[in-house]
């Protein structure tokens, strides 16, 4: 990029001091500023356009709905009278995502920590490669694997869980059927978001400044104390971002969940029993058979999912910003 003070093409003075007068014409700078500003605005416009589309398209169904949109656990938008609500969808989405997070965050961070600070270099690069590969597996594969392989494999464990921990309401199973459940969907989601969480956490862990690590060790910290004293505080914003990206995928995952769940519109806290559905899976399953109001109702549910993911991300930013003064970035 040219930083000359003279207009391009002007002959440079042969002798003496260069002329410092004259307006700067830095075409490269201007083009770059324009491009980056345009890219920034484009993102905002896209977001706004999505929001407007979702709101606009969902209005007809919301006006036709005879039931409460938020508290109804039923999905019959093309029936007469029109009855649909997102209660069961919301429950299924949040529950599967919660299970996925509970399983994937500790395991993902554990894998990342092992790769970054415990494993030998050779083992670390192999493990890192394998977890990255896991991220590249398409979701439909996870769905098929979950229903064909994982579900039968988990039968024994789930029965055991109900037998010994059935007194905890969520593990109670009155049907004796252990397939197509929220729990299995949550477990498959956990595996799907694991590489996201562990890859990003690993990147942040290895960036921990050597000086922080040595400061902790020189005070007489053990390896684990060093991790808590130097690595976790440094990596905290990164771990939150990693988890939020994973959560975003878990909330929005469509096809694997559509294969795994049996699309019943009920709020069932017995997470090992069949049933339940999520926003994304419901849209995928119902889109082709939906009528005019049905399509509009699905868009309305999509709007709720959109708002949830936005809220989750904003919440994460707030958590990160709250202690930014202590982040070491300054």
């Amino acid at each position, binding site marked *: 990029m040219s930083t000359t003070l003279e207009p391009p093409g002007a002959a440079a003075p042969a002798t003496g001091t260069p002329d410092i007068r004259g307006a700067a014409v830095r075409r490269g700078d201007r083009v770059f500023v324009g491009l980056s500003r345009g890219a920034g605005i484009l993102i905002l416009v896209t977001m706004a356009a999505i929001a407007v589309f979702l709101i606009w398209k969902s209005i007809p169904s919301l006006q036709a709905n005879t039931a409460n949109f938020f508290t109804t656990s039923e999905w019959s938008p093309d029936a007469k009278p029109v009855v649909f609500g997102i209660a069961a969808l919301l429950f299924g989405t949040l529950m599967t995502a919660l299970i996925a997070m509970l399983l994937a965050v500790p395991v993902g961070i554990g894998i990342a920590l092992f790769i970054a600070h415990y494993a030998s270099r050779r083992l670390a690069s192999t493990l890192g490669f394998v977890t990255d590969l896991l991220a590249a597996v398409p979701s439909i594969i996870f769905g098929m694997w979950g229903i064909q392989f994982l579900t039968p494999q988990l039968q024994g464990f789930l029965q055991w869980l109900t037998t010994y921990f059935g007194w905890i309401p969520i593990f109670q199973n009155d049907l004796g059927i252990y397939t197509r459940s929220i729990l299995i969907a949550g477990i498959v989601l956990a595996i799907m978001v694991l590489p996201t969480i562990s890859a990003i956490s690993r990147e942040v862990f290895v960036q921990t*400044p050597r*000086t922080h690590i*040595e400061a902790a*060790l*020189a005070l*007489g910290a053990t390896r684990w104390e060093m991790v808590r*004293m130097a690595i976790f505080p440094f990596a905290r914003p990164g771990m939150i971002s990693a988890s939020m990206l994973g959560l975003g995928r878990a909330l929005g995952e469509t096809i694997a969940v559509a294969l795994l769940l049996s699309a019943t519109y009920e709020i069932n806290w017995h997470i090992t029993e069949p049933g339940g559905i999520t926003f994304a899976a419901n849209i995928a399953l119902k889109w082709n058979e939906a009528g005019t109001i049905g399509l509009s109702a699905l868009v309305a549910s999509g709007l709720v999912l959109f708002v949830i993911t936005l809220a989750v991300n904003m919440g994460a930013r707030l958590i990160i910003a709250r202690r930014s003064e202590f*982040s070491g970035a300054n």
Partner: protein
Amino acid sequence: MAKRIDVTDLDVFYGSFKAVEGVTFSVEPRSVTALIGPSGCGKSTVLRTLNRMHEVIPGAYAEGTVLLDGEDIYGADIDPVNVRRTIGMVFQRPNPFPTMSIKENVLAGLKLDGKKRPKSELEGIVEKSLRGANLWEEVKDRLDRPGAGLSGGQQQRLCIARAIAVEPQVLLMDEPCSALDPISTLAIEDLIEELKERFTIVIVTHNMQQAARVSETTAFFNLAGVGKPGKLVEIASTEMMFSNPTQQATEDYISGRFG
């Protein structure tokens, strides 16, 4: 409180590379010993073997004995974690924990032994350590502010406060002033003068005036040759080293002819 150190026939390796060879010297309690020498001669490496910090680098190890009041810190039943709790260290670049407040930084080492202490005792330790590091007056009104918000010299004194809060036997300093301006350097040097009343201090420095100002004993390290390990050329009282060294290499280095 302060203990003596006796190093005998110390060889230090990074993997198959021998960085330091045949180092033997002693450090008297409540004294300041300066390690000087050109870059890459192994003086920082030797310093880091004194509290087993060199071995946090993969592949690094040491042979020979390092006695702390007669006990070999490389003995079979010695936990390096405990060695580091006994022998504190201050680094070249100030490294307060960025997510911790000034107070939390001072107490960071104390959190590690798992003992529960009453709040009043902790506050006493914070004040005593910060006073010991000549930092109390500057930070007493903002103990809950982040330690990373201080100036470089203040951060380094905070690191010294953190190191002395656990009441170590020995304090190792690895070029503690090389990232600081002259005024902060002077503050640290004054502090070293006070700290040697209580601690045994070993300091690595590139600054020969600094070695002359703060230390009683000076050890000069040099490379045996290109690609060869570093060795201890000469160790004597600082006065002797700077006025009448026995080795030609020491005189050349001190008079600025190389290095």
